């Protein structure tokens, strides 16, 4: 009773001193509220960001180290690459489907890509950006493309596949067409506002295709036209395909460095991508494969024939999981189903890109956490010092209390209660102010972090040509690009190349709202600071003897 009454009396008496303490605690409160709100928001986003979203993942071969290949002649390098790739057992569509049977997998989709040429009569030609490019003869084009390709894909230039006109991709289902799912590509509308056809049907080999608006207008093709494409290995094998739709690529800000680069190189021009269902594709792919084998046999280059990663890889298979927990179970289940985890890895680009998107936020979180500890430490130090002065100044008062029979514990308690009451009032005001300020402060801090992260990415891109995980990614894409042509740059098998090339969309706003938990944490923190600062109070009061103090006064 004495404690509370006297504490309130004293707070009122020494208003200036208490306001000073209050301001310090208030500053601590504002800073820590903001820091906690940011850190809390980051954690929530990290934990819940993927909680209810579907996750997609694919299985890929773990790249073999090719240290020896980095040095040596072209022939030596080609041999090493051949050995390393052909040495790996490659998964077939049936393998992929087998692993999809496990309980964690919700669904699957898959696609395959190969290359075809235009017909000899030039009734249908590839889209090209420059006049000269079109007028060039095949030989010089080959040389040009080969040169560029080798820059990217290592040994590509030695294969005839590099000279193909069109990248042909077959999809198992609409979900497989990720670019059409996320709106990067859509069926275009003509001048009259009518849709130009529709996406082909799935499930049966129907020879239906959709082509890009650029390619369509270049060839003056319309929906309903039939075109003929040619097997790149054997021009006697032709394929008659029916255009059922024309698509357009939505203008996005993803016209970044690498897709610009793609447009420059005509062989990689996304406008030359042709899409169909997987059944149609599978029929075409089989003939391309056998023609390629025949051609190689005729040339007597056995070793090299084996090295066509696309032939082996063929299919890009994607597993869909209902949630992250299921995805995390998949590795074990697939291993039980027979997947050799020494040779293959399971990777989710969703997860990788989600984690990448959190980079600035996580940096901010780290910063906030550090700030929080610094602020709290400074708080303890400053309050302890103020408190120590406070106690010295009030030594006589303590003597009086002890003299009139208030015991030391009560006197110490009274001082602590005073500090606690002032601190709690200040911290509550601080939390209020911090809560009001934290969303905008958090977001402007985040903006700076994004700017930093973007600058870093730009540096990496200019150094390595792509952003994430340079070694692994470039090996993956190199293998994928060897025979695929245009699409490798745009969508690529399994979307790996896309993931590497697409700009990371950083989480650019954070809901740094202050919740009850934060308020409680801060009150607790304030209590802790007061407690620590109060240790000095307690030790001083315990040391004081009333007689000495009161005698000093005389």
């Amino acid at each position, binding site marked *: *009773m*004495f404690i509370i*009454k*006297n504490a309130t*009396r004293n707070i009122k*008496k020494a208003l200036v001193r208490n306001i000073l303490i209050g301001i310090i605690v208030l500053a601590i409160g504002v800073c820590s509220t903001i820091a906690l709100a940011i850190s809390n928001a980051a954690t929530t986003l990290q934990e819940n960001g993927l909680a209810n979203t579907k996750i997609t993942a694919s299985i890929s071969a773990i790249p073999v180290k090719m240290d020896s290949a980095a040095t040596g002649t072209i022939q030596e390098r080609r041999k090493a690459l051949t050995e390393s790739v052909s040495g790996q057992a490659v998964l077939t569509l049936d393998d992929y489907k087998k692993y999809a049977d496990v309980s964690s997998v919700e669904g699957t989709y898959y696609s395959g890509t190969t290359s075809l040429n235009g017909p000899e009569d030039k009734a249908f030609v590839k889209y090209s950006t420059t006049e000269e490019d079109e007028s060039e003869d095949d030989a010089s084009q080959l040389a040009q493309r080969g040169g560029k390709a080798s820059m990217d894909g290592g040994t590509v230039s030695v294969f005839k596949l590099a000279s193909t006109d069109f990248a042909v991709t077959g999809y198992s289902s609409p979900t497989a067409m990720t670019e059409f799912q996320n709106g990067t590509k859509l069926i275009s509308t003509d001048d009259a506002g009518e849709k130009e056809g529709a996406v082909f049907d799935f499930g049966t080999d129907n020879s239906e295709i959709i082509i890009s608006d650029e390619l369509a207008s270049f060839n003056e093709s319309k929906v309903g036209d039939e075109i003929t494409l040619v097997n790149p290995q054997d021009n006697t094998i032709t394929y008659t395909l029916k255009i059922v739709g024309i698509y357009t690529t939505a203008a996005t800000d993803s016209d970044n460095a690498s897709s610009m680069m793609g447009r420059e190189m005509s062989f990689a021009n996304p406008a030359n991508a042709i899409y169909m269902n997987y059944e149609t594709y599978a029929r075409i792919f089989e003939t391309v494969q056998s023609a390629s084998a025949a051609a190689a046999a005729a040339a007597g280059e056995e070793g090299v024939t084996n090295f066509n990663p696309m032939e082996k890889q063929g299919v890009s298979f994607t597993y869909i999981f209902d949630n992250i927990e299921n995805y995390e179970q998949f590795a074990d289940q697939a291993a039980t189903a027979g997947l050799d985890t020494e040779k293959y890895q399971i990777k989710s680009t969703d997860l990788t890109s989600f984690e990448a998107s959190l980079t600035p936020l996580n940096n901010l979180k780290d910063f906030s956490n550090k700030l929080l500890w610094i602020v709290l430490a400074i708080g303890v130090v400053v309050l302890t010092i103020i408190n120590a002065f406070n106690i010295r100044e009030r030594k006589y*008062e303590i*003597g*009086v*209390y*002890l*003299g*009139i*029979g*208030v*015991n030391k514990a009560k006197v110490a308690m009274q001082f602590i209660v005073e500090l606690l009451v002032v601190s709690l009032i200040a911290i509550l005001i601080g939390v209020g102010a911090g809560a009001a300020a934290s969303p905008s402060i958090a977001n402007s801090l985040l903006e700076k972090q994004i700017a930093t992260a973007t600058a870093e990415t730009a540096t990496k891109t200019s150094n390595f040509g792509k952003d994430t995980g340079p070694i692994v990614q470039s090996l993956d894409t190199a293998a994928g690009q060897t025979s695929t042509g245009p699409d490798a740059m745009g969508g690529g098998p399994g979307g790996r190349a896309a993931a590497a090339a697409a700009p990371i969309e950083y989480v650019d706003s954070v809901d740094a709202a202050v919740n009850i938990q934060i308020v409680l944490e801060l009150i607790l923190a304030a209590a802790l600071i007061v407690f620590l600062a109060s240790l000095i109070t307690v030790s001083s009061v315990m040391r004081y003897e*009333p*007689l000495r103090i*009161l*005698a000093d*006064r*005389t």
Partner: protein
Amino acid sequence: MTVLQLKDISYSYPTKRNVLQDINLNFEKGKIYSITGKSGGGKTTLLSLLAGLDVTTDGEVLFNGDDLDKIDRYKYRAKNVGVIFQSYNLLPSFTAAENITMSLDASGMRISKPQRKELINQLLDVVNLEREYAKVPVGHMSGGQQQRIAIARALCYGPDVILADEPTGNLDSDTQDDILEIFTRLAHDENKCVIIVTHSKEVAEVCDEQIRISKGRIIS
């Protein structure tokens, strides 16, 4: 009736030995005592021991037969004994009423607000101070007025023993008489035990018993 008893007391400060030696004294309720003696003789030291502000080196102080070493000294000071310090020891920034209330709260006495106000007024009447002074910060009062507030504070919770160190030291003779009258009345009419340390012969003569100390020993 003996309320306070000193049995074979001796006391040494860490830096000064034998400040008090072989003291045996009995203090009774209803009587007023004076302690006189030369400066440095150990009067204040003796009062501190009686107030439980310090601990004897040898011997014991008994309150109603209980050794002070064995009871809670803080409680003893808060409830059973009222000390009027030579330097008053009031909190100057608090009003007279607040200073008194603090002691009331410390004693654990539970009274309602109006009762408390009434009690403070009565105490101010007792020490001959106008009631308006209740709201005046003690720091704004004269020495004599502070002295009287210190007395009021020592009386507020009705202790059996009142200890006063030079309570008239800085007062003019009229005020001194006033204060002495209060102490005598407390002893004789209210059955308190009042012990006054003083240099003044006048004061000592008014008391029922006169104790004289020299060099730490009682000489009469």
